[in-house]
């Protein structure tokens, strides 16, 4: 027995290797075998499998190679072997996007598709739809229509799904098949009915009225297929979401009725739909109780579905989920770790303060058994708890520290470090313990990036602690023990202590002097630089170069340096001209999720810098100072959608009009925007959009020069879209003959205000000191009466107006807004606003200080 088992194992070992180390050129040679007559099906099957395997491994074929293999494959139509034929279809589908002249198999496939062999038909339809282009489709339309209503479910499904794929390229044509598809909705087969519904609804997706009709009609008819019902529930939920009036009532009734369906999948879909409706559903309890039953199911999928949906619900309706606490607690010990993690995180999010300790104990029992991914989910949940229950920081921080000591990958450790850093920043009570945990962690942290980050945090937060000197030992240990980058970061951190704590300065100077003998260039450079700055005893210098150093956006800095070297390498480079990096915002919704999808955080400036390259002379304008968020200049759902993005440069303004043509039967040409310029502005050039086909975004650019005086920059531009229209065929997008006619389309006005021209930031910690230092600078001050009656509203409105983040607001009865910023030409400016509510109105005293008086006045003028 044991020998037999070993044999089997060996067989598996060798068996798994057949397709490894395949060589493309050798395979191309092998494919020539297809040309011989007659062919051996077994041999061909093996070669085809190899080809498909190779393609799916990501191997790239040139067009010539793909075409050669494709033509060789077409020769295999001579064999009647079923397995081989079906592999041929697969191969045709794989190669259809790479090879040339793929349409030559059209007739062969049509023959199979209409033939007697059922095994061929479905696969032939799929292959056929992947090789046809819009011109050939007319020829096969008749067969497709027949196939859709075919009595063989596999054939019918294949035709419907292919139609769905085709509707992406030729929606018009597919719309003609809707009648046949409608017939197929009533099919007995669950899959056919489901696919047919998708085709019918897909063809009507731009027509709300007929979608409404479809959903209403089908919700009354007994739809047998559970899959189709699920889809219908989704459409109904979407309609209910769009229509907030009474008219959406029947959809909700239908969805609730589905909660009592006998198929679990439909029940879940309905519960999921109700839970996700944006409006507060009337009867959440029913849906929640269904999910609760799911949590107790014997099937792992249902438990996961239930737990996951409840976890999502916690952000919106924590109370509704709290009722399920008992069921969720049963799931903590679930053998499926995904379910357990979801249950725990949900409980953490909904649980009362008192139950936290108990839960934490339960988590620690299985923490070692779950994978890093789930651990990260738990860490995030704990992090949210820290914000929610600041008083629990002691136990939470020690739990996090315990996890930090365990084994784990860099992502897991980063998540924990993030949580502790967030705790330090949010909760002053937790600062000391948190910093102590971090210090302990870097003692044996093998991840350089993480160590550097923690050193930075220590440098920033440490000096403010009660006893800064105790951190210096930890930091200086790094200088002795670690690699170059970590040593450099440690030197910077030490310097920050020196800059902030007067009494430690002599000791720091000694430490820095020692670092000047380091092996690493960067470490030596930093040490010398910081010693020099610290020894100068100039508070302004220390503030600018050690404590409040602006961090430019790295991508834009690189681009700016590149441009600088190319254009005027002789002049000094002004680092202030590069936009500083904004703190990356956490995504707002924070539902518990198992899969972590990451989207790169890109600033607006980076996003647009590629597009702006078409503007002639753009490189002479310097780096972009700021890019504002896009503003809609048209009503939604109109024929043409235009959004305006303002790009601010030191002395110039680029208005980018992002246009979208939503008419499928029109092609717009020579699209430009006529601006009625505000006084003082000079229009330098304009880049029109040559062609604007249906559903493709195009941009028109206008380059303007700012007026000299800052006050004159406030203004409004009238804008009109001008273009010439050519009618075109909606299916192909090709224009009809003829020149077309010109037309205009009025747009809303574009305002240029004050906030656009400032890059604002919240007051740094030493704002008072900077404000005092700026006392000698020009000051402008005025008192305003604001229209808002509520002081909070007024304060946030002022922040919006000045472009300051909401964090700038402080104080209770008397609101104080403190902020600073940089004007587009590089002039710094500080602003303070004091708001007082009195007798139903809010009075504001706004003071601005700046080296240039006109800039300060601009700020006041903008508010007034």
């Amino acid at each position: 027995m044991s020998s037999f088992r070993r044999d089997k194992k060996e067989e598996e070992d060798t068996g798994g290797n057949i397709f490894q180390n395949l060589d493309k050129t050798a395979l191309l040679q092998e494919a020539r075998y297809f040309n011989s007559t007659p062919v051996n099906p077994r041999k061909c099957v093996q070669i085809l499998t190899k080809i498909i395997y190779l393609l799916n491994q990501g191997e790239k074929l040139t067009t010539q190679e793909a075409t050669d293999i494709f033509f060789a494959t077409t020769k295999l139509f001579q064999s009647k072997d079923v397995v081989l034929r079906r592999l041929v279809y697969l191969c045709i589908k794989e190669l259809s996007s790479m090879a040339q002249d793929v349409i030559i198999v059209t007739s062969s496939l049509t023959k199979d598709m209409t033939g007697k062999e059922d095994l061929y038909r479905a696969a032939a339809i799929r292959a056929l739809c992947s090789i046809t282009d819009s011109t050939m489709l007319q020829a096969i339309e008749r067969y497709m229509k027949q196939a859709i209503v075919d009595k063989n479910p596999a054939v019918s499904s294949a035709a419907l799904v292919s139609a769905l794929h085709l509707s992406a390229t030729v929606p018009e044509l597919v719309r003609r098949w809707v009648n046949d598809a409608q017939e197929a909705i009533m099919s007995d087969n669950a899959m056919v009915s489901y696919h047919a519904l998708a085709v019918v609804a897909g063809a009507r997706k731009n027509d709300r009225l007929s979608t409404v009709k479809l959903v209403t009609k089908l919700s009354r008819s007994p739809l047998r297929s559970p899959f189709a019902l699920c889809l219908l529930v989704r459409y109904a939920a979407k309609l209910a979401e769009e229509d907030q009036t009474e008219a959406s009532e029947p959809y909700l009734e239908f969805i609730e009725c589905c909660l009592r369906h006998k198929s679990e999948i439909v029940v879940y879909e309905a519960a999921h739909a109700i839970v996700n409706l944006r409006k507060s559903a009337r009867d959440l309890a029913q849906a929640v109780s269904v999910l609760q039953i799911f949590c107790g199911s014997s099937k792992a999928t249902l438990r996961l579905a239930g737990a996951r949906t409840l976890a999502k619900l916690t952000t919106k309706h924590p109370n509704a989920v709290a009722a399920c606490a008992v069921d969720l607690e049963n799931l903590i010990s679930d053998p499926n770790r995904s379910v357990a993690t979801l249950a725990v995180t949900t409980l953490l999010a909904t649980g009362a303060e008192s139950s936290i300790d108990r839960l934490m104990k339960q988590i620690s029992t299985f923490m070692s058994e779950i994978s890093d991914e789930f651990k990260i989910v738990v860490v995030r949940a704990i992090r949210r708890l820290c914000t929610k229950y600041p008083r629990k920081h002691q136990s939470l921080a020690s739990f996090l520290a315990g996890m930090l000591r365990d084994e784990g990958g860099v992502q897991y450790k980063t998540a924990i470090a993030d949580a502790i850093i967030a705790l330090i920043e949010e909760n002053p009570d937790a600062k000391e313990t948190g910093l102590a945990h971090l210090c302990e962690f870097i003692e044996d942290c093998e991840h350089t990036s993480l160590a550097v980050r923690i050193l930075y945090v220590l440098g920033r937060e440490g000096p403010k602690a009660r006893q800064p000197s105790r951190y210096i030992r930890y930091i200086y240990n790094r200088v002795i023990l670690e690699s170059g980058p970590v040593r450099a970061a440690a030197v910077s951190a030490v310097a920050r202590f020196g800059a902030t704590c007067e009494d430690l300065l002599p000791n720091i100077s000694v430490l820095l002097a020692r670092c000047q003998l380091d092996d690493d260039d960067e470490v030596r450079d930093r040490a010398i630089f910081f010693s020099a700055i610290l020894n100068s005893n100039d508070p302004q210098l220390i503030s600018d170069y050690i404590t409040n150093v602006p961090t430019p956006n790295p991508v834009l800095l690189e681009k700016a340096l590149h441009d600088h070297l190319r254009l005027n390498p002789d002049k000094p480079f002004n680092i202030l001209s590069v936009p500083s990096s904004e703190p990356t915002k956490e995504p707002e919704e924070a539902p518990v999720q198992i899969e972590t999808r990451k989207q790169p955080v890109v600033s607006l400036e980076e996003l647009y810098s590629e597009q702006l390259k078409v503007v002639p002379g753009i490189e002479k304008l310097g780096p972009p100072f700021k890019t504002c968020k896009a503003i809609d200049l048209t009503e939604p759902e109109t024929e043409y959608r235009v959004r305006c993005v303002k790009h601010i440069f030191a002395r110039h303004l680029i208005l980018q009009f992002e246009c979208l043509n939503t008419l499928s039967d029109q092609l717009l040409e020579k699209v430009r925007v006529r601006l009625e310029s505000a006084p003082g502005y000079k229009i330098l050039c304009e880049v029109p959009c040559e062609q604007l086909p249906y559903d493709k975004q195009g941009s028109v650019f206008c380059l303007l020069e700012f007026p000299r005086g800052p006050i004159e920059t406030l203004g409004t531009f009238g804008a009109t879209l001008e273009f010439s229209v050519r009618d075109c065929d909606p299916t192909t997008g090709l224009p009809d003959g003829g020149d077309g006619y010109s037309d205009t389309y009025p747009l809303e006005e574009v305002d240029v205000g004050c906030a656009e021209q400032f890059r604002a930031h919240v007051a740094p910690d030493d704002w008072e000191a900077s404000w005092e230092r700026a006392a000698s600078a020009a000051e402008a001050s005025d008192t305003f009466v604001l229209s808002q009656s509520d002081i909070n509203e007024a304060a946030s409105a002022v922040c919006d107006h000045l472009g300051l983040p909401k964090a700038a607001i402080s104080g209770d009865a008397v609101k104080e807004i403190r902020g600073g910023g940089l004007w587009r030409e590089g002039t710094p400016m500080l602003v303070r606003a004091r708001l007082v509510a009195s007798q139903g109105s809010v009075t504001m005293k706004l003071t601005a200080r700046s080296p240039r008086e006109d800039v300060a006045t601009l700020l006041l003028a903008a508010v007034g």
Partner: protein
Amino acid sequence: MGLLDKLSSWMGGGGKVVTVLVLGLDNSGKTTMLRTLTTTEQEGQRQGPGASSVPTVGQRQENFQSGGVSFRAWDVSGAARLRSLWERHYRHCDAVIFVVDSADHLRLVVARSELELMLSHPDMSGRRLPLLVLANKSDAPHALSAPHVASALGLERITDKPWHVCASSALSGEGLGDGVSWLARQLREKH
């Protein structure tokens, strides 16, 4: 295996498999001709003549047997823009059937130039492939006779290949049998 297969294997001794390429301009009757051949050979007159066929897009593959030889026929589209794909099949074919619409006087020159282009292709010239020219649609009014078609195509100048021209009607099947049996004889002799 059908009875005919067995019969032919007894008669022809072995049942050779050959690849034959069916060429010709569009609307010359290639697909109809093949259908007539396959149905008469295998299933009798089940579909009946007269059933019209749609223009072939790309290529089709049909099998039929005659005179002890099993033919794998490639029916390639004759549409102008797809004619460039013919040459993909040249290298691996054993015989060529060239179908001409003998009632289409106007395009006989086009057929001639396509034929010459095919014969001068590197994969074709110098090989002793049997070439069967079918002067199709002989039942149509104003149809040219087979000798006329042969001279119009300049067949007499072909010296390196055995060729045969016969008048045929793909719809009724008349004349097809003669032509195909000539082809089968040629192929049996050659191998």
